C-alpha cells in the first residue's frame, strides 16, 4: 500500500502543479481586464496547489510507474483534488469582494449576490467540479455580473476538462513510458493517434487548439461580441456549456449564432483520432467510422423527432422556429454541451416543452456521443456494442451449437471471448449508469420541496448532471439543498470518469478504513 500511496502522491502532485499553472495564466486575464483586486486571491489560489503539488512530487519522486489499479485511483483522486483546489479562485475572489479590504479597492459593481454565493465553499466546489467535468450546471444566478476573471476561469476549466486533466499533465510534464499510457486510459480514453502516448496527447492538444481558434473566429463573424466568442468558443468545443450570459445562448436570440454553434458542438462530439485522420485528408472517416456515423445519424434522427414533438405538439407555431430550437437543443444535449436557446420566461431550459420532448432530450443526454471526444454520457460505442451484442445473442438460438460466429463492431471481428468481454464491459457501465441515476433521483425527490418539481424535471436534471451536460430544469442553483449538491458533485465526478475508477478508489478507501472487508 505504501507503493500505491507514493504513486498516487507523485501523480496527484503533478496534476496540482499543472493546476497552479492554469491559475497563473488566469491572473494575466485579470491584469488585461484591470481587475487588480482579484490578483492576490489568484496568487494564493495558485500558491496552495503548487505548494502541495511540489511537496508531493518531491516526497514521492522515486515512486513506481502506475499499474492499472493505480491508474484508476490516480484518475479518480486526481480529478477530485483538481476540482477541490480549482474551487479556490471562486472562494477567495468571493471573499475578497465580501471583506472589501481598503487596500484592494474592490469596485462596488463586483459585490453582487451572484458572487457572494461562492463564499460558501460547497458552492465554489460545485462550480469547479461542474467546470472541470464539462457539466456546466452552475451555482450562479447571473453569470453576466461575475468578474471577467471568474467568467474566464469557468470557461478555461471547462476547456481544459474537455480534453482531460491527465492529458494536460502528460502533455506538459512529458513522461514517456508505460505509466503515462495507464493514466491516459484511466481518464476515459483508449484510442492512440501515435505509438507514443506523449505524441498522442500533444496531437490532441494541437487539434483542440486549432479548432478553438476556428470556433472563436466563426462565432465572432456571425455576430457574437469577441469576449462572448472567446468564452463560448472554448466551452462549446469542449462541450462544457458554461456561458457568460444569464440566459446562455438564448441571450443573443440570433439564428446565425444558433446555427454556427451546431458545427462547433459537433466537432467536440467526434473522437480526436478521427479528427486527426480527417485533417490529413481522410474525409471518408466521416462515414466509415462507426461512432462518427452514429453521431451524425443520432443528431439527425433525434433532432427530427424532437422537431416533430415541439411542432406538432404545438410548442411552436412555425416549422422553422421548431427546427431552430429542436435541432439546437438536441445537438446541445446529445453532445453533452448544455447550451440553452429554448428557455422559458423564468429562465428554465425547455420550460414550456412537453414531458415527451423533455424526456427525448434526456435520452440524448444519457447516450452522449463518441468515446474519445470531449462528451459525457454512456457513449455511442457502448450503445452500439450493447445493441449488436444483444442481436448476436438472440440470433445464436438459430445456429447450431457447433457454429463458429464472430461479432463485428466498428470493422473489428471479435471472437467469442473478445465479444463477451466487450459486451460485459458495456453492460456493466450501462447498468451502473442507471443505478446511480436512480439513486440520485431518489435523493433529489427526498430533499426537494414537495410539489415544486415534476418527476420529468428530476429525471432531466439528474440525466443532465451525470451525463455532464448542464441543461437545467431549474433545480440546480445556490438555493438547492446541500445534500442535493453533494449528490450532484458525486454524479458529475463519476460521469466524467465513467464510474469504474471512482468505485475502485472508494473500494480501496473503504477497505483500508476497515468499513468494507
Amino acid at each position, binding site marked *: 500500500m505504501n507503493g500505491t500511496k507514493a504513486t498516487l502522491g507523485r501523480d496527484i502532485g503533478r496534476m496540482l502543479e499543472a493546476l497552479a499553472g492554469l491559475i497563473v495564466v488566469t491572473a494575466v486575464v485579470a491584469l488585461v481586464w484591470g481587475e487588480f483586486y482579484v490578483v492576490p486571491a489568484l496568487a494564493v489560489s495558485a500558491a496552495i496547489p503548487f505548494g502541495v503539488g511540489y511537496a508531493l512530487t518531491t516526497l514521492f519522486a522515486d515512486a513506481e510507474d502506475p499499474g492499472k489499479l493505480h491508474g484508476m485511483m490516480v484518475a479518480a483522486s486526481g480529478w477530485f483534488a483538481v476540482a477541490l483546489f480549482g474551487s479556490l479562485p471562486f472562494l477567495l475572489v468571493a471573499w475578497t469582494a465580501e471583506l472589501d479590504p481598503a487596500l484592494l479597492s474592490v469596485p462596488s459593481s463586483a459585490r453582487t449576490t451572484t458572487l457572494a454565493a461562492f463564499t460558501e465553499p460547497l458552492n465554489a466546489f460545485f462550480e469547479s467540479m461542474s467546470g472541470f467535468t464539462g457539466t456546466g450546471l452552475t451555482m450562479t444566478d447571473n453569470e453576466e455580473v461575475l468578474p471577467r476573471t471568474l467568467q474566464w476561469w469557468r470557461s478555461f476549466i471547462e476547456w481544459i476538462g474537455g480534453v482531460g486533466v491527465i492529458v494536460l499533465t502528460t502533455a506538459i510534464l512529458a513522461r514517456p513510458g508505460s505509466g503515462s499510457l495507464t493514466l491516459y486510459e484511466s481518464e476515459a480514453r483508449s484510442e492512440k493517434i501515435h505509438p507514443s502516448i506523449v505524441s498522442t496527447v500533444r496531437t490532441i492538444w494541437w487539434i483542440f487548439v486549432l479548432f478553438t*481558434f476556428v470556433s472563436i*473566429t466563426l462565432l*465572432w*463573424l456571425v455576430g457574437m461580441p469577441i469576449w462572448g466568442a472567446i468564452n463560448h468558443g472554448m466551452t462549446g468545443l469542449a462541450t462544457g456549456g458554461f456561458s457568460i450570459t444569464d440566459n446562455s445562448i438564448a441571450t443573443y436570440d440570433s439564428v446565425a449564432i444558433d446555427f454556427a454553434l451546431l458545427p462547433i458542438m459537433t466537432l467536440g462530439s467526434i473522437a480526436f483520432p478521427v479528427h486527426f485522420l480527417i*485533417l490529413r485528408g481522410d*474525409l471518408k472517416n466521416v462515414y466509415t467510422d462507426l461512432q462518427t456515423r452514429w453521431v451524425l445519424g443520432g443528431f439527425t434522427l433525434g433532432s427530427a423527432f424532437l422537431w416533430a414533438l415541439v411542432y406538432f405538439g404545438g410548442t411552436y407555431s412555425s416549422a422553422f422556429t421548431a427546427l431552430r430550437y429542436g435541432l439546437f437543443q438536441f445537438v446541445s444535449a446529445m453532445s453533452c454541451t448544455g447550451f440553452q436557446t429554448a428557455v422559458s420566461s423564468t429562465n428554465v431550459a425547455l420550460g414550456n416543452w412537453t414531458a415527451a420532448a423533455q424526456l427525448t432530450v434526456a435520452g440524448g443526454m444519457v447516450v452522449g456521443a463518441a468515446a474519445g471526444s470531449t462528451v459525457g454520457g454512456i457513449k455511442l460505442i457502448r450503445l452500439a456494442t450493447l445493441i449488436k451484442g444483444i442481436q448476436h445473442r438472440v440470433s445464436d438460438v438459430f445456429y447450431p451449437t457447433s457454429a463458429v460466429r464472430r461479432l463485428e463492431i466498428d470493422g473489428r471481428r471479435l471472437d467469442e471471448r473478445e465479444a463477451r468481454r466487450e459486451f460485459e464491459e458495456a453492460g456493466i457501465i450501462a447498468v451502473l449508469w442507471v443505478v446511480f441515476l436512480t439513486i440520485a433521483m431518489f435523493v433529489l425527490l427526498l430533499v426537494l420541496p414537495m410539489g415544486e418539481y415534476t418527476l420529468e424535471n428530476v429525471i432531466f436534471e439528474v440525466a443532465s448532471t451525470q451525463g455532464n451536460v448542464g441543461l437545467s430544469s431549474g433545480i440546480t442553483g445556490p438555493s438547492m439543498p446541500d445534500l442535493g449538491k453533494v449528490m450532484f458533485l458525486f454524479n458529475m465526478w463519476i460521469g466524467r470518469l465513467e464510474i469504474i475508477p471512482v468505485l475502485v478508489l472508494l473500494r480501496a478507501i473503504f477497505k483500508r478504513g476497515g468499513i468494507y472487508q
Partner: protein
Amino acid sequence: MNVQDAPLIGQVLESGADDRVLDGLLLSGPIVIALIVLAGRNLLTEGIAVTYLLVFVGYVAYLGLQRT
C-alpha cells in the same frame, strides 16, 4: 536559429497533422483574435476572419479531394 528550435513554435510543428498550412493556421489563430480584440469589428478584421475560415475549410476539403 531555426524556426523549429523556437520553444512554442517547435512544439506546434512537431505535433499535429504534420502539415505546414494547418500549423500556420494554428500559429496565426492568436494573431487573428488579438487583431479582432484590438481593432474591433470593421471591414478589414471581418475580411481577415473570413479568409481564416475559408483557408481552413477549403484546405481540408482540398486535402480530402487529393486523397480520393
